[in-house]
């Protein structure tokens, strides 16, 4: 990382304004250095090949981690990628974006002997990248069943479901409101985690199985009715993301300079020229989760002079892992804990500051943090979809599903962020899609018999 107050040529750049082209390149290139062939083998050889391995148990998609790592140590990267992708078709994205420090790598037994865990994420990336470079194909379709399944949303849940269904011989039509596939992989993850247009490359690989068509720019309930989906298909899988950012419930939220973090990241991910993005000088981010961390770091890397993440509770309560918090601190982001926003300072329709109350002390003492750009990153809720007369049992607006991802409506499954109890992780969405596909397959083929 170059210092953001000067460009790579050492010339001073006005804070909160554009950086040099080289700085944008550096700041938004791949955050992790991938393992090379030799370091991958050395790292793989550190793996103890545990029995009933805790890393595998910790993986939401149940990847056989010890086996794929052993295959890397045997220089069978393609076989390793096969192991990974057979359980998690988005193994490449998960290798980049999974919070491994709270999942597989947290469970690694190496942690318990004053050692560092195996770099499972980087090894998974090594194998999947290598297989992709070699153009390895792992899946073939079973004989056509004649069934057609509608999948709503081309994000991790939808694509995972579609891919598994396609391998089982079903035809799939994905209805996607956006112009591109990938969901949060394309529009939501931090840019430096998905460098090199990785989301689209992965989608391309997934679709190469055949039997999946995607209708982009097609919003269910608007461009196509839910009833049509039910009529035209034998089953429906709902894999939509959360469309609505939660408000902070203070006056002035519609003022200029107050933005939804998710919308800004969406814009950032699609920007052809990062220099055209608006960047404040004194940025405040409200929230304590991954999105808050992602927007804080990215806005800093775009040239903001001061970035403060304000979270209403303590460090240990934050949804972002300790590692992610440290990453933000290293980037120069200031994290204010126990900071509860109580009012927004608006002048002439523009944000100028946020008034915070110290949430961990008694009394009414407040302080003001000046800001010209405020991001809301306190979570999202499911945007209601017009589903006609079809009614679902929901919790907090999200679909309730059983352990096979069946909703309360016969013939309709749901998975990923839109189901109640979801952890909002891409890796969990992939698992939901996979399990839903298996359940759909079972239902369809049983009804045939």
């Amino acid at each position, binding site marked *: 990382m170059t210092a953001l107050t000067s460009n790579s040529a050492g010339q001073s750049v006005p804070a909160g304004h554009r950086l040099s082209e080289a700085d944008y390149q550096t700041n938004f290139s791949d955050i992790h250095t991938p393992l090379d062939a030799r370091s991958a*083998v*050395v790292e*793989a*050889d550190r793996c*103890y*090949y*545990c*029995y*009933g*391995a*805790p890393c595998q148990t910790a993986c939401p998609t149940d990847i056989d981690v010890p086996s794929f790592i052993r295959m890397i*140590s045997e220089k069978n990267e393609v076989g390793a990628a096969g192991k990974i992708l057979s359980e998690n078709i988005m193994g490449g994205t998960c290798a980049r974006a999974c919070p491994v420090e709270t999942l597989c790598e947290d469970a690694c*037994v*190496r942690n*318990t*002997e004053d050692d560092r865990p195996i770099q499972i994420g980087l090894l998974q990336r090594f194998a999947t990248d290598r297989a992709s470079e070699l153009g390895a194909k792992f899946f073939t379709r079973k004989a056509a069943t004649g069934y057609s399944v509608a999948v709503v949303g081309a994000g991790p849940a939808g694509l995972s479901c579609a891919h598994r269904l396609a391998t089982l011989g079903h035809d799939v039509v994905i209805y996607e409101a956006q112009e591109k596939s990938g969901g949060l992989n394309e529009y939501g993850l931090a840019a430096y985690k998905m460098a090199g247009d990785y989301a689209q490359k992965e989608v391309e690989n997934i679709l190469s199985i055949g039997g999946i068509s995607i209708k982009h720019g097609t919003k269910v309930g608007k461009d196509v009715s839910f009833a049509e989906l039910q009529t035209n298909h034998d089953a429906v899988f709902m894999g939509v993301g959360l469309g609505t950012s939660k408000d902070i419930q203070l006056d002035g939220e519609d003022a200029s300079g107050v933005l939804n973090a998710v919308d800004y990241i969406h814009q950032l991910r699609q920007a052809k020229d990062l220099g055209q993005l608006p960047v404040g000088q004194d940025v405040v981010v409200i929230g304590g989760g991954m999105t808050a961390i992602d927007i804080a770091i990215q806005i800093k890397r775009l040239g903001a002079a001061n970035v403060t993440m304000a979270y209403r509770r303590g460090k240990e309560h934050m949804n972002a892992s300790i590692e992610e918090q440290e990453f933000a601190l290293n980037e120069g982001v200031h994290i204010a804990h126990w900071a509860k926003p109580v009012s927004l300072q608006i002048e002439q329709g523009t944000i100028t500051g946020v008034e915070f109350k110290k949430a961990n002390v008694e009394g009414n003492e407040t302080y003001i943090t000046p800001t010209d750009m405020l991001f809301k990153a306190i979570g999202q809720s499911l945007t209601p979809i017009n589903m006609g007369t079809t009614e679902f049992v929901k919790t907090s607006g999200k679909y309730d599903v059983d352990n096979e991802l069946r909703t309360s409506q016969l013939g309709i499954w749901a998975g990923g962020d839109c189901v109640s109890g979801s952890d909002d992780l891409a890796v969990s969405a992939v698992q939901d899609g996979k399990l839903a596909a298996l359940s759909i397959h079972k239902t369809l083929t049983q009804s045939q018999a």
Partner: protein
Amino acid sequence: MIDLKSNFIGIETPNPFWLASAPPTDKAYNVNRAFEAGWGGVMWKTLGEAGLPLVNVSGPRYGAWHGKDRTLMGLNNIELITDRDLEINLAEIIQVKKDWPDRGVVVSLMVPCEEQAWIDILRRVEDTGADGIELNFGCPHGMSERGMGAAVGQVPEYVEMVAAWCKQYSDLPTIVKLTPNITDIRTSARGAVRGGADAVSLINTINSVMGVDLNQLRMSPSVGQQGSHGGYCGPAVKPIALHMLSEIARDVECNDIPISGIGGITDWRDAAEFMALGASNVQVCTAVMTYGFRIVEDMIDGLSRYLADQGMTSVDQLIGAAVPTVTSWNKLDLNYVAKAQIDQDSCIKCGRCHIACEDTSHQAISTEINGERGFQVKDEDCVGCNLCVVVCPVENCITLRELDTGEVDSRTGELVSANYQNWTQHPNNSVG
């Protein structure tokens, strides 16, 4: 710090660390560097008959078995004896011995099994002032096809005959270097003893093929289109060498013949183990070919401190100290009972002990403790085999506990007896 002064069959050196007869001792340049680094002595690379020098291959002479982190575990070579002119070698030996009077210089020899050939070479070596000779009866490649090296070492009568010629025609201390490529190394060691040799050295390298290049489906390494077996050495061969060493050390017919230990010695610990099992000094090759000569500094320091810690005042007190602890299987105490125990504080719950025991041994390690992942030994099934100990990645996490006399072995339901009972005394032994 303890003085490591060594006296091996009358050859006095400042320490017991010698370089084996091999490429590192092929010429004065290397040997001078070795002595500067502190090596106690060298076995000068094997000389052959006078005449046109041998020709080595100008392709790969070495192959290796690497660990995943490129640690060199084993080395194989197909180099022949010296390919330099005999006269040059002899002249250099004279000069080196003159320059380094306190170091050992022993000349390795290999000539055809003809009395006159040995008489000729012995006279030449005697004139150099060298401290002794080592008869190369071990080299397993190339020379053995010509009836020398291992081809001699594999026939005890030849070993005896040539050793006897050397003693008859020269006054030089004579060491016979033994090949491990034989069923029972004691037979050739006994031949050396009968021939009057002053010492034996072992092991020479082991017949080996390093591998196959799976892309070309060709033996690897190969010289052009084909390869040939070579001699294997390095850390991987150490256990084989220790076995052969201890066999000779405790063999009555070998009559306590002094032994120079060779085979994968990489550091002072290896050296100390060889000496404890009967080696008077040790010879090193692969380790210096991997790291260079300076490792001798660490070896000197380490061995010296070890002797001090043991309360020993000279290397002589270490030599053979562990030989009485080596015995035959039928002398092992069958009333001894041990059980594995897992230290739960250091256990990292990898489960390797369980799966090793479950799949391949006695199903004696359970996977749950109070309903949670955890590994525990089932004493009623444990035979104390040590497999869990060796597969556990955490040192000293699993140990064997010796049961006390009078304790019940829950596997057999019997009390542990204080009485020593070996197989020859056991009621189940019908053969006697």
